[in-house]
């Protein structure tokens, strides 16, 4: 679960990481009030969960009151990669002397936290990473070992800071690492950490992504996540299913991510077929879940056919079949539906599906199922 910048900054603030004076607002009227407290110049920042908002025009500096209303309205209306802002953050403009980068994430191979810092922070940090990787220091951290202040000082010292700045920066890194652990983060990042002309160390941006699987330990965020979903999404989420809407015309229900990706590879190989969605159920198949999956897919405009690709290892695929049958009956579905469903209780599953008019492919190869659907769509008999 990704947090908005303002949410992440609240967490920073309560953990004694310095942030700019700022106020979250949802209208230009409130923006005017906010500026009275903060004072010009201010930065108006779109609150979206998508990267690259600066380059997309989602961050603007406003020097005078006459420009404020227009800028705030523009940013509130601005769509970045299809997403509108959830309000804007009005923030004091810092006098920047230097920008640093600090990011903490997980090294997937080692299974350790990795802290990265660089004295060349700012929007081009990935360019720095590509062209001059030595300018980014990396530290691997064993999750079972406590990290002490002196270790963060040793670490930040490699960037050639000394005196009070050294202490201020290493304290920010230490606090960020504590947040990374305490909030079960997959990513905790500050880009940039600003050193001001007064030698203050202030975090101008904040990125936190909490591990969805750990939300049971963070009830407030779990509640916030559930509040942002409709009933069906809640149900999906509870069952651990993943749904992504795509542009194509073939609905897809698969019982695993790998299987889903392999099926998409095959569908994309046909000229007149492409996936309308990516949907993987994980190991949580029930009759209701698959029924919901079906209802979700048939709402997609221009849907031409549906492909089910299920394995019964831990999943009761015969229950899934009942969900398909129920959806077909309720909506009197006429579009072609092809299913490949193998594993435990496969015969029972096939019987339920065939009775509802689903074309069941009993071969092991997903290719055969995709081929069958393609033939039906071209009017051939199968």
């Amino acid at each position, binding site marked *: 679960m990704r947090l908005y910048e303002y949410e992440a900054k609240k967490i920073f603030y309560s953990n004694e990481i310095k942030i700019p004076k700022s106020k979250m607002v949802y209208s230009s009227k409130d923006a005017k009030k906010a500026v009275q407290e903060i004072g010009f110049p201010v930065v108006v920042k779109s609150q979206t969960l998508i990267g690259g908002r600066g380059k997309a025009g989602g961050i603007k500096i406003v020097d005078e009151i006459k420009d404020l209303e227009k800028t705030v309205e523009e940013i509130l209306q601005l769509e970045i990669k299809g997403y509108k802002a959830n309000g804007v953050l009005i923030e004091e403009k810092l006098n920047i002397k230097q920008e640093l980068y600090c*990011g903490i*994430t997980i090294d997937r191979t080692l299974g350790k936290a990795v802290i*990265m810092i660089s004295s060349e922070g700012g929007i081009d940090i990935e360019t720095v990473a590509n062209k001059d990787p030595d300018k980014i220091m990396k530290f691997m951290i064993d999750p079972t070992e406590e990290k002490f202040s002196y270790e963060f000082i040793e670490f930040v010292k490699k960037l050639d800071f000394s005196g009070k700045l050294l202490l201020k920066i290493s304290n920010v890194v230490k606090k960020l690492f504590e947040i990374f652990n305490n909030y079960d983060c997959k*990513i905790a990042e500050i880009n940039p950490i600003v050193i001001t002309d007064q030698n203050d160390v202030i975090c101008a941006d904040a990125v936190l992504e909490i591990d969805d699987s750990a939300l049971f330990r963070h009830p407030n965020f779990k509640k916030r996540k559930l509040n942002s979903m409709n009933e069906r999404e809640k149900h999906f989420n509870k069952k651990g299913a993943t749904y992504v809407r795509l542009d194509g015309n073939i609905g897809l229900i698969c019982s695993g991510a790998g299987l889903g990706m392999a099926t998409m590879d095959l569908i994309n190989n046909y000229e007149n077929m492409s996936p309308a969605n990516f949907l993987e159920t994980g*190991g949580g198949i029930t009759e209701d879940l698959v029924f919901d999956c079906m209802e979700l897919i048939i709402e997609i405009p221009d849907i031409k056919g549906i492909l089910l690709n299920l394995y019964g290892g831990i999943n009761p695929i015969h229950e899934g079949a009942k969900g398909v049958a129920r959806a077909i009956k309720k909506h009197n579905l006429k579009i072609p539906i092809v299913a490949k469903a193998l594993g435990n209780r*496969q015969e029972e599953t096939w019987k339920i599906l065939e009775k509802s008019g689903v074309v069941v492919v009993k071969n*092991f*190869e997903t*290719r055969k199922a995709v081929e069958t659907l393609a033939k039906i769509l071209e009017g051939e008999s199968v």
Partner: protein
Amino acid sequence: MSILVNKNTKVLVQGITGKIGRAQTKYMLDAGTNIVAGVTPGKEGTKVYGIPVYDTVKEAKENHDIDASVLFVPASIARECVIEAAKNKIKLITLITEHTPVHDVMEMKSYIDKSDSLLIGPTTPGIISPGECKIGILPTNMFTPGSVGVISRSGTLSYEVSAILSDNNIGQSTVVGMGADLVAGTNLIDILKLFNSDKNTKLVVLIGEVGGSQEEDAAEYIKNEMNKPVVAYIAGGSAPDGKRMGHAGAIVEGGKGSAESKISHLTSSGVKVVSFLFEIPEVVKKLLQ
């Protein structure tokens, strides 16, 4: 012969009395797995399909020889159940559970790395040496005994590729699901090493997917050490990009992680990479000739 599990492997089931634990115990017994004991705290003295249940791993270990444990436990306690198994010196620990917090996985991996145990998973379908032993949830009817080793990062694709091989009369020595989470207890290289020294495995089929750098690392190992042919498929070449936020992930992966990167690393290490799973049997047959 096989790797990790065989007909002599004595298996413990942690979480044996739960709905899934119970159902999967039956499937494992049907597949010929030698399950000797189960653990569910508070359920000592009961039996599941004739298998005695204990409160703790320690007591199960005192009463039985145990080589391997398979876990069907809630995600919220997976960390401590894995550590309990490792503390009791169980050599092979397979965590089937999905949705374990990644910080818990890092912690258990760190613990396991310092022990003599091996952790497969989490979110793994498990391991099967067909005809001998199955640990986990793989649907038994997809697999046949033989001499091709299968390693897969995706659970469902481990079934699909094995079924396709079986359908073409190509049996498997052992099939290992690596687990689909951000962090896995064991990496591809660890399993490749085992297959490399297993004299009954003649060829390895590797099913990778986009994300992480395990396939790139594996390619390096294959180039330098592997003495048998490897055939690979990478899922997700046409998958949409995930929504990105933050730079940290990209910096860590340093350009690795895409299907293109994995395919080019593997190909230049002498691995035959196919575009679709159905191409695998033909390639395998040719290489085994």
